[in-house]
C-alpha cells in the first residue's frame, strides 16, 4: 500500500513534468500544477504510512539503470524527508498555478518544477550507491536549470554559475566518498555497506566521512560552503526558491545522517564535533547577514544558512553524545534537530512563497522600496506574518517548539562530563541564543518594513492581492506552522521513528530506556526534567487578549469617545508624514550592522556634491552601501582569481596552429612511453 502510493506519487510528479512539456499554453500550468500536487499528496500518504507504522518497503527496478538497476528503500528516516519534501511540494505546486498565470512560463519552465520535485522525492528513497548518485545528480541538474528559468537577467546567470560549480564540486566529493565506501565494503547496496562497516579501517571511514561531509554540507549551505545559496535561492522563481530552501537543503542533512550515522555507524567523536562547529559558524554567520540584508529573498536565504546551522548543531551534538555513550541524550538532541528541520521547511517554504507573492505583485523584492502591503495584500501579509513569527520562535508557533527542544537537548547534554563535548554544546547554547535575537531583528524588519507603514515606492503602492491558488499554497504551510506549534507532541513520536532508524546501529552504546519525548500534546522530556505546554500558553494568551478587551469595555466612557478616530501621526510639529520620512530596511539594520561591523564589513560610499557658490552648502548627497559576504571575499575571490589567471594562460596554448597540436601529440606520446618504460 505505502509502496504503491509512493511510487504512484513519484510517477505522477514525473507525468506532471511531461504534461508541462507537451500541453498547449493555457492548459499547461493548471495540468502540471494539479498533477504535481496529486503526486505530492500520494507520496505524502505513502511515506507517511511508513513513518506511522514504522514498516519500510523495498523496490528494485532492474530496467531503469543499466548494470545495477534502481534500488529503492523507504525507511522511517527517508520517509521523514519525503514527507517534508512532499508537504512543501504540495504547497508550491498549488502556488505555481497562480504564480505563472501572468508570466506565462514556457514549456521547459513549467516542466522543470515537477521534475525537480520528483528528483527530491527520489533521493531519500535511493538504497544503493548508484541509485543515490543518479538521483542526487538529477536533483542537482533540475535545480540548476530551475534557477536558470529567468536566465535573461545577468545576476541569474551569475548565480547559476556559482551554483553549478559548487554543486558539482560537492557531487564529485560525494561520488568519491561513496565509491571509496562501496569498493571497501564489498558491494554498492546500502544494506550491504551497513552490514560490512566493521571491516572498514577507521582512517578510511574518516576519509569517506570528510568527503561526503564536504558534498552534503555544501548542498545544505553550511558556511564556508554556502556562497551559492544566497545567490541561487533568491534568483529562482518563487515556488522554486521555496522548494530549494524548504526541501533541497534538507537533502544535505539527510546525506550526513544516512552516511555518517546509518552506513558508517556513527564513527568517531571528532566527526560530529566538526559537524557541530560547522553548524555554529553557519548559524551565527547566516543570522548576522539575514539581519543586515535588505533584499527580501536574500534575507530569507541567509536565514536558511542560519537554520541549517541550528540543525547541524543538533545533529553534531547528537552524534557526539552517542559516540561518547549517551544515547538517550543524543536521541533527544537529534529529535530536536530533525523537528527543527521539518519546521524550517514549513516556515521557510511559507516565507519564500510569500516573498514570491510580493515580488509577483509589486515587481520588486527590495525592502527599501516596499511597505504598506498589509492593507493591499492582507492574505499574503497574514501568512507571511505567521511564517515570520514562527521563525522568530514565538510560543504557539512551530519555531518555538523545536528551538525549545534544541535548548533542552543542549542543556541536558551537559551531563556527560567530557570537556570537548561540553565546550561544543556550550557553543551551541550561545549560538541558539545569539541567533534568536538576530533572527527576531531580521524578521521584524522583513514584516514591519515590508508590510506595515506606508508604501515607499509606486511599485509597492500598486501591489494587489495575489491569486487564490497562491494564497492557498501559502496558507497550507502557514497552517502547518500553527498546528505543529500548538500541539508539537502529536508529531514528535513520528519524528522519533526516524531517529530510531539511525540509532539502532550503534550497538556498543546501551539502548535507550524511553523515547526522548513523552507522547502527548505538549513537550515533556520525562524522565528528564523539562516540560512545556504550548497549547496552554496559546490559550492563556488568547484569554489575556479577551480579558483585556472585556476590561476595557467595562470602563465607563462617553459614547462619542468610543468611536475610533484616525489622525496624522506625530511629526514633531510637521503636518504631514510622507513615505520619504519613513525608516527604510537599510536604516533599520544600520545600528546592528555598526555593532557587528567587524564581521559584516559593509562597503559604504557617501558622495557629497557641493553647491557652486559655497562648499558649505551640499547640493546632493548620494549614499551607497552593500554588505558583501566576508567568506566569499576572503576565500572564494582569490581562488576564482587564480583559476581565471591560469585559465587565461592556458588559453594561449591552443592558438589554432595544426603544427603546434601535432607537437603536443608527439610530446604526449613520448611522455607516455617514458612513463611506461
Amino acid at each position: 500500500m505505502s509502496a504503491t502510493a509512493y511510487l504512484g506519487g513519484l510517477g505522477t510528479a514525473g507525468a506532471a513534468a511531461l504534461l508541462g512539456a507537451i500541453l498547449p499554453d493555457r492548459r499547461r500550468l493548471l495540468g502540471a500544477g494539479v498533477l504535481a500536487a496529486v503526486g505530492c499528496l500520494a507520496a505524502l500518504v505513502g511515506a507517511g504510512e511508513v513513518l506511522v507504522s514504522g514498516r519500510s518497503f523495498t523496490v528494485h527496478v532492474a530496467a531503469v539503470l543499466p548494470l545495477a538497476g534502481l534500488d529503492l528503500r523507504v525507511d522511517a528516516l527517508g520517509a521523514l524527508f519525503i514527507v517534508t519534501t512532499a508537504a512543501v511540494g504540495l504547497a508550491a505546486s498549488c502556488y505555481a498555478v497562480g504564480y505563472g498565470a501572468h508570466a506565462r512560463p514556457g514549456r521547459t519552465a513549467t516542466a522543470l518544477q515537477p521534475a525537480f520535485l520528483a528528483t527530491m522525492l527520489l533521493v531519500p528513497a535511493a538504497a544503493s550507491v548508484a541509485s543515490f548518485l543518479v538521483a542526487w545528480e538529477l536533483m542537482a541538474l533540475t535545480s540548476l536549470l530551475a534557477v536558470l528559468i529567468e536566465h535573461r537577467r545577468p545576476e541569474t546567470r551569475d548565480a547559476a554559475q556559482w551554483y553549478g560549480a559548487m554543486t558539482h564540486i560537492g557531487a564529485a566529493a560525494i561520488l568519491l566518498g561513496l565509491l571509496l565506501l562501496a569498493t571497501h565494503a564489498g558491494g554498492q547496496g546500502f544494506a550491504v555497506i551497513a552490514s560490512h562497516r566493521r571491516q572498514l579501517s577507521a582512517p578510511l571511514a574518516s576519509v569517506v566521512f570528510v568527503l561526503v561531509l564536504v558534498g552534503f554540507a555544501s548542498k545544505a549551505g553550511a558556511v564556508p560552503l554556502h556562497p551559492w545559496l544566497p545567490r541561487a535561492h533568491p534568483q529562482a522563481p518563487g515556488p522554486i526558491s521555496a522548494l530549494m530552501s524548504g526541501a533541497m537543503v534538507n537533502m544535505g542533512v539527510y546525506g550526513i545522517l544516512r552516511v555518517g550515522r546509518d552506513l558508517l555507524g556513527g564513527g568517531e567523536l571528532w566527526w560530529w564535533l566538526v559537524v557541530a562547529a560547522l553548524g555554529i559558524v553557519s548559524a551565527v554567520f547566516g543570522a548576522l547577514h539575514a539581519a543586515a540584508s535588505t533584499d527580501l529573498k536574500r534575507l530569507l536565504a541567509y536565514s536558511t544558512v542560519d537554520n541549517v546551522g541550528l540543525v547541524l548543531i543538533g545533529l553534531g551534538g547528537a552524534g557526539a553524545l552517542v559516540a561518547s555513550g549517551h544515547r538517550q541524550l543524543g536521541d533527544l538532541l537529534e529529535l530536536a534537530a530533525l523537528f527543527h528541520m521539518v519546521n524550517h521547511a514549513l516556515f521557510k517554504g511559507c516565507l519564500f512563497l510569500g516573498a514570491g507573492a510580493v515580488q509577483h505583485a509589486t515587481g520588486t523584492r527590495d525592502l527599501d522600496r516596499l511597505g504598506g502591503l498589509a492593507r493591499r495584500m492582507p492574505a499574503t501579509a497574514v501568512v507571511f506574518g505567521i511564517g515570520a513569527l514562527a521563525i522568530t520562535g514565538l510560543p504557539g508557533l512551530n519555531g518555538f517548539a523545536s528551538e525549545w527542544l534544541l535548548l533542552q537537548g543542549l542543556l541536558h547534554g551537559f551531563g556527560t562530563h567530557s570537556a570537548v563535548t561540553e565546550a561544543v554544546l556550550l557553543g551551541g547554547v550561545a549560538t541558539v541564543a545569539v541567533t534568536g535575537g538576530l533572527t527576531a531583528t531580521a524578521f521584524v524588519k522583513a514584516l514591519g518594513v515590508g508590510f506595515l507603514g506606508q508604501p515607499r515606492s509606486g511599485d509597492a503602492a500598486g501591489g494587489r492581492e495575489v491569486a487564490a491558488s497562491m494564497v492557498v499554497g501559502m496558507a497550507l504551510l502557514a497552517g502547518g506552522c500553527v498546528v505543529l506549534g500548538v500541539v508539537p507532541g502529536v508529531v514528535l513520536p513520528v519524528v522519533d521513528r526516524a531517529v530510531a532508524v539511525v540509532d539502532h546501529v550503534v550497538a556498543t552504546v546501551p539502548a535507550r530506556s524511553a523515547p526522548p519525548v513523552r507522547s502527548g500534546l505538549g513537550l515533556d522530556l520525562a524522565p528528564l526534567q523539562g516540560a512545556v505546554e504550548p497549547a496552554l500558553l496559546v490559550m492563556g494568551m488568547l484569554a489575556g487578549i479577551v480579558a483585556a478587551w472585556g476590561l476595557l469595555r467595562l470602563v465607563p466612557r462617553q459614547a462619542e469617545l468610543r468611536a475610533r478616530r484616525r489622525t496624522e501621526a506625530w511629526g514633531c510639529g510637521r503636518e504631514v508624514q510622507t513615505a520619504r520620512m519613513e525608516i527604510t530596511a537599510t536604516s533599520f539594520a544600520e545600528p546592528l550592522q555598526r555593532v557587528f561591523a567587524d564581521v559584516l564589513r559593509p562597503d559604504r560610499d557617501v558622495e557629497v556634491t557641493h553647491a557652486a557658490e559655497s562648499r558649505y552648502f551640499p547640493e546632493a548627497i548620494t549614499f551607497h552601501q552593500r554588505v558583501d559576504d566576508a567568506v566569499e571575499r576572503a576565500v572564494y575571490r582569490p581562488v576564482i582569481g587564480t583559476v581565471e589567471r591560469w585559465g587565461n594562460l592556458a588559453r594561449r596554448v591552443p592558438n589554432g596552429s595544426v603544427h603546434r597540436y601535432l607537437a603536443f601529440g608527439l610530446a604526449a606520446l613520448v611522455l607516455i612511453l617514458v612513463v611506461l618504460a
Partner: protein
Amino acid sequence: MTGALSTTVASGTSGLLAGIGASVLQVIGVAVGGPLLLGLMAKVRARAEGRRGAPVTQVLADLRKLVRKEAVRAHHTSVVSLLAPRVLVASSSVAVAMSPLLTTRPVAARGADLFAVVFLLLVGSVALALLGLDAGTAFGGMGSSRAMTVGAISEPALLVAVVALAVQSQTSNLPGLVTASLAHPGWLASPQRLLALVALVIVVIAETGRLPVDNPSTHLELTMIHEAMILECAGPDLALVTVGEAMRLGLLLGLLANLFFPWGVGVSGSLPGILGGMGALAAKTALVAALIAVVEVSTAKLRLFRVPELLAGAFVLGIVAVTTALVSR
C-alpha cells in the same frame, strides 16, 4: 531534585483550583504592583534629586485617566496597532501566571519553563517593535530599530544567564529552580550565581528600558528608544502598553528576587502561604526597584553604540557563569 519538583506539582481538582487561584492572584498583583513599582522608582529618583515628586500611585492614576480617553490612531496604521498592546499585555500575563512569584505552585507548574518565559518576553518585544513600524513614521521606525538592536544582544545575554541557573539546578523548570534555591542557600555565594546575577541585572535594566540603556523620562524624540515606538499610542492603547511594560518590569524583578533570594515565597500553595509570599515579593521587588532608581540618579545615559558593549559584557558574564557551573558540578 525529582522529589523537590514532584512536591510542586499540584494534584487533583483542588490543587488545580488552588493553582489557578494563585496564578490569577499573581497576574492581578503584578498588574497593580508593576505600576506601583514604576511610581516608586520615580519617587525615589525625585527624592534623591531633592524634589518631592509625584505620589507612588501616580502611574495608576494616569492609567485611570488614559482608559477613559478615546483611542486615536494614526493614518496608515493596520490591525497591528490594535493587536500589539493587547498581545503585549496577554503575553506578559501568561509569563506572570506561570512564574513562581507568590507561590511555587502556580497553575500548570510542570510546564512552567524558564526558556518559555524568555520567549514570552520576546513576544512582547516583537509586538512593540511592529507597533513602532506600523504608522510608518520616522520616530517609530527609529525606536523599533534601536529596540531590536538592544534586544538582539540582551535576549542572548538573558538566555545564557538563565542557562547558567538551569545547569546548576539541572532543570529549567521555574518552580524547580526556586525550590532548588531554597534547598541550597549556600548557592547564593557560589561564583556562577553571582556572575549570573550581575548579567541578569544588566539585562533587566536593558529589557525594561531604564538608565543607562534608555531614559524612560526623556522628552526628546531623537534620544528615545522605547518611548519612540509608542509615540502613536493613545488612550486605552497607551494604557495597555504601560500596563504591559510595568508587568514585564514586575515579572523580571520578581523573578530576579525569587530565583536568587527565594525566602518568603509560598511553598505550600495555601492562602496564608500566598499572602506571605505577596508580602515578601512586594518587599523584595520594592528594594530592588529602589536600588535601580538610586543607581539611575547617579548614571548618565550611555551613547547608543556603547550599549551593545555593556550587553556584550553581560553575555560574556553569562557564558563565564555557565562554564563555572559546568566546572564546579
